[in-house]
């Protein structure tokens, strides 16, 4: 055939799903692990655990393959294959509910509460309105901007957090961001992208926050 066995393994790929990403439409995205793979004529197909159909073929956008559909059964395994001229050259068994990558949180803000000596961090997530992947864990990361790699992390499941003033440097510029992952129960998966960062300056010992 076109490929001998050794080459068949040279097409490792990864996929993630985003449920109810557009109304009740779900999104499944796959990419080759090796960005230098020559993907001309290569196609992706998913079969099994689908509603009404046996298989669905992916669309291609540059190096990314994706399907937007309502037809995920959300129960049981599917088989995702790379095909070359209708010939399956490599396949992986995957369960759409176990490879969920949440949408990134957004609207992160920080409010200084002088009386409380803390900074109230709030952010938003589209998953609060969803039916399926409602339970998320969030990771807030913040750092003093002049210490580039000195990130501090807080894990939480709510969308509100108080950072204690006594734990931050006075009169310093901080950057803060947040990301989410499914709270592993029925739905599992990967970390979302980071939210856009928010920047804030802590007050001098006695003054007000800018």
């Amino acid at each position, binding site marked *: 055939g076109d490929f001998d066995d050794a080459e068949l393994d040279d097409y490792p790929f990864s996929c993630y799903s985003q449920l109810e990403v557009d109304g009740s439409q779900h999104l499944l995205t796959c990419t080759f692990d090796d960005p230098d793979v020559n993907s001309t004529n290569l196609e992706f197909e998913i079969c099994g*655990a689908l*509603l009404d159909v046996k298989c669905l073929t992916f669309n291609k956008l540059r190096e990314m393959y994706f399907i937007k559909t309502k037809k995920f*059964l959300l*129960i*049981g395994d599917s088989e995702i294959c790379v095909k070359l001229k209708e010939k399956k050259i490599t396949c992986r068994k995957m369960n759409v*509910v176990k490879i969920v990558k949440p949408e990134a949180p957004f609207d992160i803000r920080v409010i200084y509460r002088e009386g409380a000596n803390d900074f109230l961090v709030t952010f938003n997530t589209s998953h609060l309105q969803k039916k*399926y992947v409602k339970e998320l864990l969030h990771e807030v990361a913040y750092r003093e901007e002049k210490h580039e790699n000195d990130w501090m992390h807080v894990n939480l499941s709510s969308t509100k957090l108080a950072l204690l003033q006594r734990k931050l440097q006075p009169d310093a510029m901080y950057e803060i961001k947040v990301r989410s992952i499914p709270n592993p*129960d*029925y739905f599992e998966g990967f970390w979302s992208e980071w939210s856009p960062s928010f920047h804030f300056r802590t007050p001098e010992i006695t003054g007000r926050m800018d």
Partner: protein
Amino acid sequence: YNFTDCDFEKIRKKYQEVIYHALDKYMNGRKSTGFNNHIYCEDPPDCLTKIDRITFYPNHGCTSLAKEIFAVRTNAALTLQCPGYSGMQMNNTQAKTKRKKREATTNKCREQVSRLMELWRRFSR
């Protein structure tokens, strides 16, 4: 089929996370307690037996729920978690209607689905 050996906890999780939303969507926000013909199930195997019967076999003026999304999901869950369960057997009438679009939701079918929701609720408690 005797549902005694099923993995009830895994079926419950699939019901709670996935099947329930499809049932709720089928009822389209209508209260499932609006009907007055109640159905009782004693324990998980008994509940699944009645769920299987109402979901996959025509009854009381509702010819077929088997093609509905909640039914396809129920079938997938039972096939995965009940050893030896051979899944939705398309009987002749269903096979003939297989290519037909899903039937309009009739009140008779809504009544059957409200009984299904009761059985699932009872099963999950």
